[in-house]
């Protein structure tokens, strides 16, 4: 894992990896660069250097409320996905649940459903139930799309846990719940962390669902961003985008510090 690739194959691998990184990161770098531009419009290459766009954005009440909505939504969806997804993944993997494959497929189905359509369906469904609360609608919708990520990663890490560890703990006198907390959970912490990170990022970045379910009072950041862009395309848009990138980076780095991201991603 830590060993370096060598030879012609190694060179090709490194070049390919570098190319992929450039393609993925270059547009992000453009956005960040533009956010410091003094030009009144978002143009590249940027002109001069200023942090005034950030000051403007951060002072904006609408941005502040959108940011708080997004972070709250992401945190709540992540926690709820964890609370619902952990027992689900565990039960599906460790117990003899009748129809477990069907249940797992159903839990993971939001992966393959077009989210835009899911959002529309959810909107109609909630109108039928007379649920007019946008915050609640967004929360339910976000949990729906983040839950599969948690179930998927926790399932993957549960499958990697050596069953004989759990059996050994049982023979040593640990009741099943202690086997879970003392032996199983420490093995799958990286998977749980990765799952939670995915949940947070997916929710924080979620557009198609929020597009249907948000309203003027409860507007997540991506919707706010899109709304602002249709008004005026100045570097404040780039500044908002950069702040979103920063939040994502903070989440990734936090996870790396907490459990080691390389371990977390190894599932």
């Amino acid at each position, binding site marked *: 894992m830590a060993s370096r690739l060598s030879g012609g194959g190694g060179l090709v691998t490194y070049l390919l990896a570098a190319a992929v990184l450039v393609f993925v990161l270059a547009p992000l770098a453009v956005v960040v660069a533009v956010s410091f531009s003094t030009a009144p419009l978002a143009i590249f290459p940027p002109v001069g250097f200023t942090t005034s766009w950030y000051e403007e954005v951060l002072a904006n009440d609408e941005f502040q409320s959108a940011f708080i909505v997004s972070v709250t939504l992401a945190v709540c969806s992540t926690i709820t996905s964890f609370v619902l997804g952990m027992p689900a993944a565990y039960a599906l993997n460790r117990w003899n649940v009748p129809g477990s494959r069907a249940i797992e497929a159903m839990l993971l189905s939001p992966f393959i459903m077009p989210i835009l359509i899911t959002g529309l369906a959810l909107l109609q469904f909630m109108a039928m139930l007379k649920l007019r609360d946008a915050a609640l609608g967004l929360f339910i919708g976000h949990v729906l799309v983040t839950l599969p990520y948690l179930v998927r990663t926790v399932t993957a890490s549960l499958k990697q846990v*050596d069953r*004989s*560890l759990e*059996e*050994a*703990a*049982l*023979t*040593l*006198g*640990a*009741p*099943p719940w*202690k*086997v879970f907390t*003392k*032996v199983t959970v*420490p*093995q799958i912490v990286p998977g749980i962390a990765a799952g939670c990170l995915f949940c947070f990022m997916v929710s924080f970045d979620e557009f198609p669902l929020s597009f249907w379910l948000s309203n003027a009072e409860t507007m997540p950041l991506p919707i706010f961003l899109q709304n602002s862009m249709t008004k005026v395309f100045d570097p404040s848009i780039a500044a908002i985008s950069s702040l979103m990138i920063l939040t994502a980076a903070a989440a990734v780095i936090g996870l790396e510090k907490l459990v080691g991201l390389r371990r977390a991603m190894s599932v």
Partner: protein
Amino acid sequence: MVATAQASDLAFSGLTKLFGTTRAVDGVTLRIAAGEMVALLGPSGCGKTTTLRMIAGLIEPTEGDVLIGGMRITRTPVHRRNIGMLFQNYALFPHLSVAENVAFGLQMRGMRKALIKPKVAQALSLVQLGALADRLPSALSGGQQQRVALARAIVIEPTLLLLDEPLGALDRNLRDSMQVEIRQIQQRLGITAVMVTHDQEEALTMADRVVIMRDGKLEQVGTPEEIYSRPTSRFVASFIGTCNFLRGDVIGQEAGRPQVRLAAGGQIALPSPANDQKEVLVSVRPEAISLSAEERGTPATILQIVYRGQATHVHMALDDGTPFLAFLPNRDGKPVRSAFSTGDRIWASWSPDSNWAVSEA
């Protein structure tokens, strides 16, 4: 010294496990004395592991009962059975240090920290790993890891020690010394133990009694010597060590010994009265055979001579084509008889005490 709880005997009666319609274990009944070490031996799929896991409580039997010290524990959950178990892959908790691994079972019993510490130290010194207490399992070799697992299993003073192919992942030399070490500790503590293995040498080395299993049933139960020298069936004889099989007809008795005319030519005697059957299958161990250029015994043709260090293996064919094998001991690493060569016609002879009639199946 790690003490054990009062050693208990173990019994199972009519133990049966069905997986779907497959009878993985089929009506196994056995009694294991307190302090005894029994090896369940057999080819893969014979039901030995399933039997062990039913004793542990990791699998629930379809029928039958498991009793420890006369107490029926068939429906007792694993964590209340007070067993120590060794797994083939050691199953050490990777996130805990060696000492924490050993302490785990004591913590589960709610023992106070002050009491746990000396017990862990004792157990680790018993397996000669006191110096490695603070290491993580991943920093240990395979042999050291299984020693930690042994310390972890015995520190809880189990009523029963279960070993599931404990040395299967180790290389030959280490396996040999670990066999002796585990056996010594088991005897010293007087723990009743059941081991599963597919390695016949391991079973002979470690066990007081060997249980040969086949298709979910007991094929033969006996001491290593009984199993080796008095196999009941062709299956057992060929599973434990190497064996020659000769077909013949009983043609009469001489001094209480049935005389057998071999299909391959020659006549041999059986050491004890065979049952009334006319046709018999006689097993002879290769190390019992001596070869001679003189016309004495059963004629054979040498196919191949293989030098194997402590012995030379001579592969032969009897006159009716039956394969026949002799192990000739080497002295100072040199073959005692080097005069033979491939293609030679020679005569094989052995003591009638080496003959043993076995059932065909």
